[in-house]
Every structure is written in structure tokens, then in C-alpha cells.
């Protein structure tokens, strides 16, 4: 059974069954990754291009490992050092890559909506690896998958997303994904970093981080994205850390043990302290581990949608 979509552009377009299907498949790939030979020959006949117009460590390595462990051929492209700097358009760049017989494109782009635009113009399957401040579907899937590992089915579970909600594609994809799985979602952070009308998505809004922590079972802490802020939205990093950073004392004052997550890269001492990030409550490295299995599942499930052509 493959997915109901040809591309993985956003979680918004996925059905709940698609998400469950991805999780079931990822369970199997996670098992493959525990074996001495962490590789299966499934996609020997597939070539995947990783097209990154924006920096990335985790996502890019994770995608590349996922592709290699499925035995696909991989080509990497990054905007710096390419003809993009000579003025080549997005469609031209991607069509030139596809002309070399590439079956699937994994793309990260700083412009929100770029993968949707591309999907209208090319035939290959596209996986969105993050577009601007819009969506980052595989991150949301691996987040929900990691939560499910800890808490079981997510129906009725309370999850708080804390920090820079405004500039975070992880936040939006997480909201869609968790709601489709039946969880309750809260966003928390300074008012300047929480978009207006976000409650229309059906999420709770909280400006007091302590209260959010008291409410939730899982806190997904997001990075402050200074590179996307073109005007100051809070006074100093120190002030942010003081009022909105998660530290040990805060967690110890709760009468329960909550799960701490962070999509990385971490600004230690800003949104999260080391004594929290490195504690056993934190599943930050489990998220990274699960990322490969989730991406293998997505690539595998989309590969059946390929246009076989001639």
C-alpha cells in the first residue's frame, strides 16, 4: 500500500492513514538499522537528488543515509558553489538535474512554497526537506514517531511546542501531524514570536512557559532562528533565556516527568540548558536516530508512485 500523495510536500496534505502507514514502515526500517548489515537492496534502480538551497547538517546527512541504506544512488547539490549564483532559475536547475535521469528530488529552500511550485512543473516525486517558514514534514513525522515510541498512541496526549513558533517550519508541520494523530497541541513563547490567529488552527496559546510545561506531557523546544528575524523581536538572548529558556530547576519544580525534544541545532543556554538537553528526560538523539528510519519509509513509500514512462 503506497501513500495517497505523489510527493511529500507538507503534512497538511497527508491523510492520517498515510502517517500510520509511514510509521509502520519505519518500524521495519528501524529494525533493519539494528542489523549487522544496515542496508537493503530495495531501491537499487532509483536515483535521488538532494537539492539544498539552504544550510543543513542533520536533515541532509539523514536523507543521504536513508537513501544509501535503501541502495539508491545519491547526488548532492548545494546552492553555494553552483550555477544558482550565476542566475539560473529553480525550474531550470532542477530540470537539468532531472535530465540526467534522476527519479526523486529532496529539496530544501528558503522560500515558503517552493516545493509546491516545483511539483507543478516537474514529473519526479518531490520530498520537502523544509521550505522557508512553512513546513518540514519529515521532521514532524520523526518527532511524532519518537513521541509514539515513548508514550504509545498519541490520541489525547498533550504536547507543547515552545519557542520561536513564528519562524519555525517544524512548528507548523508538528501541529498538523500531531492533530491528525489526535493529540492536543499548545504553542508557547513570547507574544512577538507567536503568529497572530494561530489559535484558528485549533491549538492552545500560552505565553507563560512554566504553565505550558505544567500542562504538557511532551515539550518540543524550538530553536530561536536569529537568521530569519529582520527586526528585533526580543531584547537580548539573555533575556529570552531568562524568561523562556528551559532549565533544570523548572523541570524539577513540576510534579511529573515530561519528555523533552528539540529538532536541533541547539542554542545551548538560550532556549534550552545543557542540564536539560543532556538529561535522560531528553530524547533529542533518539529523534536523530529515528529520522533515518522515517526518511527511508517516506522514500520507499513514494518510490512506487514513480512514473515508469516508456
Amino acid at each position, binding site marked *: 500500500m503506497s501513500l495517497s500523495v505523489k510527493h511529500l510536500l507538507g503534512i497538511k496534505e497527508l491523510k492520517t492513514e498515510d502517517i500510520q502507514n509511514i510509521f509502520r514502515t519505519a518500524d*521495519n526500517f528501524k529494525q533493519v538499522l539494528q*542489523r549487522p*548489515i544496515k542496508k537493503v537492496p530495495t531501491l537499487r*534502480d*532509483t536515483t535521488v537528488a538532494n537539492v539544498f538551497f539552504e544550510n543543513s547538517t542533520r536533515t541532509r546527512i539523514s536523507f543521504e543515509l536513508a537513501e544509501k541504506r535503501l541502495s539508491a544512488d545519491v547526488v548532492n547539490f548545494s546552492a553555494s558553489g553552483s550555477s544558482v549564483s550565476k542566475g539560473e532559475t529553480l525550474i531550470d536547475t532542477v530540470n537539468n538535474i532531472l535530465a540526467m535521469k534522476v527519479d526523486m528530488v529532496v529539496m530544501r529552500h528558503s522560500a515558503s512554497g517552493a516545493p509546491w511550485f516545483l511539483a507543478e512543473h516537474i514529473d519526479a516525486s518531490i520530498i520537502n526537506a523544509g521550505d522557508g517558514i512553512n513546513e518540514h514534514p519529515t521532521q514532524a513525522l520523526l518527532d511524532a514517531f519518537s513521541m509514539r515510541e515513548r508514550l504509545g498512541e498519541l490520541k489525547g496526549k498533550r504536547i507543547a511546542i515552545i519557542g520561536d513558533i513564528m519562524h519555525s517550519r517544524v512548528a507548523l508541520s508538528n501541529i498538523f501531524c500531531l492533530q491528525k494523530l489526535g493529540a492536543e497541541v499548545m504553542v508557547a513563547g513570547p507574544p512577538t514570536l507567536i503568529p497572530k490567529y494561530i489559535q484558528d488552527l485549533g491549538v492552545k496559546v500560552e505565553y507563560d512557559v512554566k504553565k505550558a510545561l505544567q500542562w504538557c506531557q511532551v515539550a518540543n523546544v524550538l530553536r530561536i532562528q536569529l537568521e530569519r528575524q529582520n527586526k528585533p523581536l526580543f531584547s537580548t538572548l539573555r533575556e529570552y533565556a531568562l524568561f523562556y529558556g528551559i532549565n533544570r530547576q523548572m523541570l524539577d519544580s513540576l510534579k511529573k516527568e515530561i519528555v523533552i525534544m528539540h529538532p536541533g541545532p541547539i542554542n545551548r543556554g538560550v532556549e534550552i540548558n545543557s542540564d536539560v538537553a543532556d538529561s535522560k528526560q531528553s530524547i533529542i538523539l533518539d529523534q536523530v536516530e529515528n529520522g533515518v528510519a522515517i526518511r527511508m519509509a517516506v522514500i520507499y513509500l513514494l518510490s*512506487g508512485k514513480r512514473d515508469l514512462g516508456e
Partner: protein
Amino acid sequence: MKTLLDHNQLNITLQRLAHQLIENHLQFNDTAIIGIQPRGVLLSDRIAALVQKITKQKHIDYGRLDITFYRDDVSQGIHVPKRTDIEFSIEDRNVILIDDVLHTGRTIRSAMDALIDFGRPKSVELLVLVDRRFSRELPIQPDYIGHTVDTIMTQKVKVYWAEQDKKDEVVLID
């Protein structure tokens, strides 16, 4: 639709297959049984239980193998994987692969590839309940056969198991 094996015949056949395995592998000290997911496992569950009962061994190495990721037709459709559990080393052991129906041989090809990723067995044998001979697309032959049948491509052989289908029966569907 024609019945190839009814309840009694099927169970006698299973007994025979178990005895044939024991004839060659005695106490199963150096031999492991591996069923192929999804339908072969229903057969291998029975065979493993019979072998254990007859040999009076406390433990026999028995695993299940999913071959989804080793198929050669991924681009023609996506199959949902089932669990693989092989909790023992197959390195230098005799392995008996078990599937319910042998048809084109492609499943067994995938299974052998999957198996090799877990180690290098000393030998691999194949046990099938129904052998649809003359329809092979690969040079693969079984070592233990429950029942042989001549079929054409459009026909289907279906094995029903009491555990899942409420009856033990093998039928040929036109």
C-alpha cells in the same frame, strides 16, 4: 475451484514433511527453520511445532523473514512489510526456508538475498507445501515438497490455515 488437500490430507502431509526434515537433520542442533512472511509463516509455525514435538527438543531455532525490501518489483507497487525476527545467528548453520506455495521462484530468490544479509549459512534448503511445477521463472527447486500440482499462470493456489482462515485446506482456483 478444486480441493487439492483437505483437512486430513493436509495434516498427514505436514507430518510427512516434519519427518523428512528430521531424517536429514536429526536433532536440529545445527539447523534452523525460517518461515517467509506473510503466508509461509503459517506453515512454518506448524512444521516447527511438529519437529519440536517429534524430536522432543526443548528448543529449536525458529525465525520469520520478511522479504518486502528485497523484492525485484518495487517500482510496480508497494507492499506493506511484516516483521522479521531472527533472534539467532545463522552463520555456519543449516537453514530450512519454508514457504506455502512455490510458483515463479522470485520470492525464494528475494528470501535468499535477505538471508545472506544475516550471515553465511552452511547450507540452505527449501520446503514448500505446494509446488506449482513448470511455472518457474528462475532456476529454483524445492528440497521438500508437500504436494505437486500442474497449473497455468491464470490459476491460483490458495492455502487456508485454521489459525487465520478457520479451516485447513489447499484449493486450486481457476
